[in-house]
């Protein structure tokens, strides 16, 4: 009879402990939400200060970006131009190679071959970006200069090629997941109609996995746009409007690095520019990430 109250209090204690643990864990889970809020808050605050000094029209209509010079100009387009140029070129490397690699891994490779090839792609994906930057500057650039002598020491193409190979494994692995999710029955139906393996892969499996592949592609573009160290090392510091990949350019990320390395005083206009540029970058990648996420959700629903 005496055991009863103590057991009750034990139960109560356990329940209190349970609630406390749950609350703490929820708090940990909220850190990510706070991070997003923090990013938006910091970017927004400094960007608002920036736009008090510089008008929207100047930012979006001017065609020159020279905040660190005496004659300050704040047209964002040269930086966007550099970013898009490098990202687009990187995609020329990463998308076809990545998709082909995914098709080979998912549709043709035997289990044994997969086990040999996969670790290489994983290592390729795990190499720090600063290493790719070194590789671009000391290996790819000299190579390009021997083919196209007019290539500048810092140029968009060299950074883009290194970036392409850096992103290739991401494209390959995400596309492979999408291909893998296509049910067997679709493949077998196509075989039964007399299609060859390659025809099944390209005319049945790839179209069926298209939204997943598109999601992978968009994510790849987003990574290329946000990639920093390769372009900071190999692509140069000259913001300009050009489509010539052999010229020196500057990307949004490289600009942020350039300012961060210098002794730009806090509260100065140049200091605020990196947040305005960061805001632009954040919005661009956010848009792409959301699009990619929605596409993945869609293709998951089809076959489950």
């Amino acid at each position, binding site marked *: 009879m005496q055991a009863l109250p103590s057991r009750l209090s034990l139960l109560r204690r*356990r329940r209190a*402990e*349970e609630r406390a643990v*749950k609350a*703490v864990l*929820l708090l*940990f*889970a909220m*850190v*990510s939400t706070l991070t*997003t809020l*923090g*990013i938006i808050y*910091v*970017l927004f605050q*400094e960007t608002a200060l920036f736009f008090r000094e510089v008008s929207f029209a100047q930012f979006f209509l001017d065609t020159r970006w020279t905040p660190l010079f005496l004659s300050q100009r704040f047209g964002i387009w040269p930086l966007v131009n550099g970013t898009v140029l490098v990202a687009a070129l990187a995609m020329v490397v990463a998308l076809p*190679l990545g998709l*082909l*690699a995914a098709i*080979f891994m998912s549709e*043709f490779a035997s289990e044994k071959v997969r086990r040999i090839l996969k670790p*290489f*792609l994983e*290592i390729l994906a*795990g*190499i*720090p*970006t*600063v*290493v*790719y*930057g*070194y*590789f671009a*500057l*000391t*290996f790819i650039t000299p190579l390009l200069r021997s083919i196209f002598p007019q290539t500048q020491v810092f140029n968009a193409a060299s950074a883009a090629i290194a970036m392409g*190979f850096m992103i*290739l*494994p991401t494209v390959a692995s995400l596309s492979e997941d999408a291909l893998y999710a296509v049910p067997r029955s679709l493949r077998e139906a196509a075989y039964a109609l007399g299609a*060859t*393996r*390659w*025809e099944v892969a390209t005319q049945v499996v790839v179209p069926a996995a298209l939204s997943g592949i598109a999601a992978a592609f968009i994510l790849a573009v987003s*990574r290329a*746009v*946000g990639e*920093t*160290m390769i372009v900071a090392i190999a692509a140069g510091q000259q913001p300009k409007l050009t489509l010539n990949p052999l010229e020196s350019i500057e990307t949004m*990320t490289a600009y*942020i*690095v350039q300012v*961060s390395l210098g002794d730009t005083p806090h509260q100065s206009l140049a200091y605020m520019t*990196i947040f305005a540029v*960061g805001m632009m970058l*954040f919005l661009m*990648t*956010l848009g792409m*990430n*959301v699009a990619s996420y929605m596409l993945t959700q869609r293709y998951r629903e089809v076959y489950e």
Partner: protein
Amino acid sequence: MKGYEVRFEPDLPRRQAVGRIWQGVALLAILMGIAVLLTLLVRVFLDGLPYLRPQLFTEFPSRFPDKAGLRSALQGSIWLMVLTALLSFPLGVGAGIYLEEFAPKNAITRFIEINIANLAGVPSIIYGLLGLGLFVRGLGLGRSLLAGVLTMTLVILPVIIVSTRESLRAVPASIREAALALGASRWEMVRDHVLVYSMGGILTGMILALSRAIGETAPLITIGALTYIAFDPRGPLDIFTVLPIQIFNWVSMPQEAFHRLAAAGIVILLAVLLSMNALAIWLRNRLQKRW
């Protein structure tokens, strides 16, 4: 009705030949990636060879390549890795446990999940701007190791949460049901059963996340991690530098000798990363349970 006039032409040998050619092309795509990887590794190693010597570990950075070393960068990287691990492990694993084992299926949970998925895709340099605005200026931590640790923790949290959730999900429901049937509370079930079985996977994910942290450069540059540090860091409030920043610094120099120093630094960095990956694979094989 032109579409119906298509005649069936089997011509199987030709179609199969085309398939084989494309299959070869697809294999070539992978081999190209591997070729780039091997070229990169061999080049870096050969470039760095002359500077791979004891002084690389014992000397501070210097204006003279022959006297320069990685001492402060190595110490900074170790400090950063240990402190980031201490902070991000409880936060990331805790968040993963909450979302996988406790969270009700409602709008708030979905919001947190979408948030994490999105954060994983935010460029790391944006985290640097967050760290600059929030930790360096906002909290007044300055360009300290602590500011770097906090920033890097936020960078790798999404990775840890995702891998923790995957490891927890791999534990079969029967284990949970057995524990609950014997009267365990939810937390007791997680702590004494589910976590024990999934620890291999969680630790593997943790090591992989940390290996990302020590290679990450951009956010630390943005918060202003200095490159010229000629003393041993004593604590979390000291200014600091890390391996990839020192490498970046050397790559940015015009002289060839500094490029070779950078290559030597890269060899060290890659060696650390590869051994961490090997450790992760070993852990996975040893601790991970197959059901």
